[in-house]
C-alpha cells in the first residue's frame, strides 16, 4: 500500500514539476534559447506574489490577477529589449545572458528581501485534504496544482492549433527566417511567446510559494527540476511536461520510500535513464533546425 500512496503523492508532486518545466519548454520550444534564469524567475514570481499579497491584502491566489498581466508585460519587454539582441548567434549568447541575469535576480532578491525564507499563505487551502482511505488523504493544494497544469496544457494545445497567433508561434519555432516571408515578424512573435512564458512563470511562482517556503537563492534548484522535466518529456515539447513532471515526481517519492536520502537522487537517476535510452525525450515534438 505504501507504494500506492507514494505513487499518488508522486503524481501530485509531478503537477508542480510540470509547471516548473512548462515555462522552460515554451522558451526552448519557440525561441530555441535556453533560459538559465528560469528557476530564479519562478522564485521572483513567488516574491512578487508576496509583495502583492502584503500591499493589496489579497490572498496569494488572487495575486495572480495582478501578477499574470504584469509578468506578461515584463516577459515581453525582456525578450524584445534584451533577448532579441542575442538572436542569430546560436544558443551560447542566450545562455551567457540568462546566466548573468540569474546572478542579478538572486542578488537583487537578497538585497530587497534578505535571506530569510518566506512563505505564501492561502489560509486553510494549504492544510485541506481529501481522505482517500482511512489512513491516507491527498492534499487539496497539490491536487489543485495538478489540475491547473492540466487545464493550462489543454488551453495551450488549443491555442497552438486553432488560433492565428498560435500557428504563428509554431511556424516561427519551425523557421524564423521563412516566417518573415509570410508577413510574420519573428521578433514580435518571440516577445509574445516570452510574455506567455512569464505569465506561466507567475502561476508557477505562486503555486510553488504556496507549497514550500522559498528564499532568494532557490532558483537554480528549481531550474534543475525544470530541466529534468523537459529532458524526460522531450525538449520543447509542451505536452511532454506533464509526463516528465509525473515521472520525476514518482521517481522521487519512490526513492524516498526506500530511503529519504534518495528523494532527489532517484529523480536524477530517472532523468539519466531517459537520457541514456531516449536522448530526445519521450515526446520529442520539435525538430532540429539546420
Amino acid at each position, binding site marked *: 500500500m505504501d507504494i500506492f500512496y507514494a505513487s499518488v503523492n508522486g503524481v501530485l508532486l509531478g503537477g508542480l514539476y510540470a509547471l516548473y518545466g512548462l515555462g522552460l519548454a515554451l522558451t526552448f520550444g519557440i525561441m530555441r534559447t535556453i533560459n538559465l534564469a528560469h528557476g530564479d524567475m519562478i522564485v521572483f514570481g513567488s516574491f512578487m506574489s508576496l509583495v502583492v499579497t502584503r500591499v493589496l491584502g489579497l490572498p496569494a491566489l488572487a495575486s495572480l490577477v495582478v501578477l499574470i498581466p504584469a509578468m506578461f508585460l515584463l516577459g515581453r519587454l525582456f525578450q524584445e529589449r534584451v533577448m532579441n539582441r542575442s538572436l542569430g548567434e546560436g544558443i551560447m549568447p542566450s545562455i551567457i545572458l540568462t546566466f548573468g541575469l540569474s546572478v542579478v535576480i538572486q542578488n537583487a532578491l537578497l538585497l530587497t528581501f534578505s535571506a530569510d525564507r518566506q512563505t505564501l499563505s492561502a489560509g486553510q487551502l494549504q492544510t485541506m485534504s481529501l481522505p482517500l482511505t482511512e489512513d491516507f488523504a491527498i492534499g487539496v493544494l497539490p491536487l489543485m496544482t495538478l489540475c491547473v497544469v492540466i487545464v493550462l496544457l489543454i488551453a495551450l494545445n488549443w491555442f497552438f492549433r486553432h488560433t*492565428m497567433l498560435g*500557428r*504563428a508561434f*509554431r*511556424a516561427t519555432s*519551425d*523557421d524564423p*527566417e*521563412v*516566417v*518573415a*516571408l*509570410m*508577413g*510574420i*515578424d519573428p521578433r514580435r512573435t518571440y516577445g509574445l511567446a516570452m510574455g506567455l512564458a512569464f505569465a506561466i512563470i507567475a502561476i508557477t511562482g505562486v503555486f510553488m510559494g504556496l507549497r514550500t517556503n522559498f528564499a532568494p537563492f532557490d532558483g537554480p534548484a528549481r531550474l534543475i527540476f525544470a530541466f529534468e522535466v523537459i529532458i524526460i518529456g522531450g525538449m520543447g515539447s509542451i505536452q511532454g511536461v506533464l509526463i516528465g513532471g509525473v515521472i520525476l515526481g514518482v521517481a522521487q517519492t519512490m526513492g524516498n520510500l526506500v530511503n529519504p536520502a534518495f528523494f532527489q537522487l532517484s529523480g536524477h537517476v530517472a532523468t539519466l535513464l531517459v537520457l541514456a535510452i531516449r536522448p530526445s525525450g519521450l515526446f520529442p*515534438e*520539435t*525538430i532540429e533546425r539546420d
Partner: protein
Amino acid sequence: MTQETSSARRGEPLLSVSGLCKRYGAVTVVSDVSFDLAAGEAIGVLGPNGAGKTTLLKMIGGTVAANAGTVTFQGQDLTRLSAEARCRAGLVRTNQVPAPFSLMTVWENALVAASHGGALSRRAAEDRAHEALLRTGLLDRHHSTAGGLSLMGRKRLELSRALACGPKALLLDEIAGGLSDYEVKELIDLIAQIRASGVAIIWIEHIVHALMSSVSRLIALDFGNKIADGAPRDVIESEAFRRAYFGDSIATAELA
C-alpha cells in the same frame, strides 16, 4: 531597347529597383543593378552561378539589406522596410530550397501565410488558403504534414504560401530546380496561370527553356552586373550573355 521595356516604362512601374548594391567585405556581389517591373509583367533572371541573382532577389524581398540603392513598390519606397512588411505590401518571395513548416499540415502552412502575410481575418484567411491550395493542386493533400511532401509537393506548397499572402509581385528563386521534365512543365503551366491572374513575376531560373516559355523579358547578370536586359531571344543571343556563359573564344567564334 525593346518593346517590352518601353511599355513597362510608359506608365508607373509596379516595382522599381534602382542602383542596388551588395558587398560582403571586399567582394561585390551585386553592383548597381536597376530595372523596372510593370504590373502583370514577368521577368526572368539568368546568370552563371555566383552572378548575384539570389542576393538581388533577397534585397528586393527585404531579407538582405542593400548597401546602396532603392526598392520602390507601388510608388512607395520600401528600401528600409523588413521582409515581413514588404510581404504584407504584396511583394512576396519564395525560397530557393523549399522550407515548409514541416511539423504543420499543408493547410496550416497556407493558413499562416494567408492570415499573416495576407493580414486577413480567420474566415477570409481560410478562403484565401483554400483558393491558393486549389490553384496549386495541393488541396487534396491539405491534411498531410508538410514535412512528408515530395520535392514537387514542397515546391507547390512554397507557391501556395506565396499566393496565400496575396502577392502583387512574386519573386521566384529557382523554383523549377531539381524537378523532372514533366514536373517542370506542370510548374510552367501553374506559373502561367498565376501570371494570367495579374500577378507580376520575377523568376530566377537555370532551366532556360522554362524561362523562355514563361517570361516576356529577360535580365542577365554576371559578377553582380546587369549585362543584358530585353526580349528573351535578344538577350540569349546577345554577345555579352554568350561571353558570360561560354567565354570569349566561343562567343566570337559563334558570332563570326
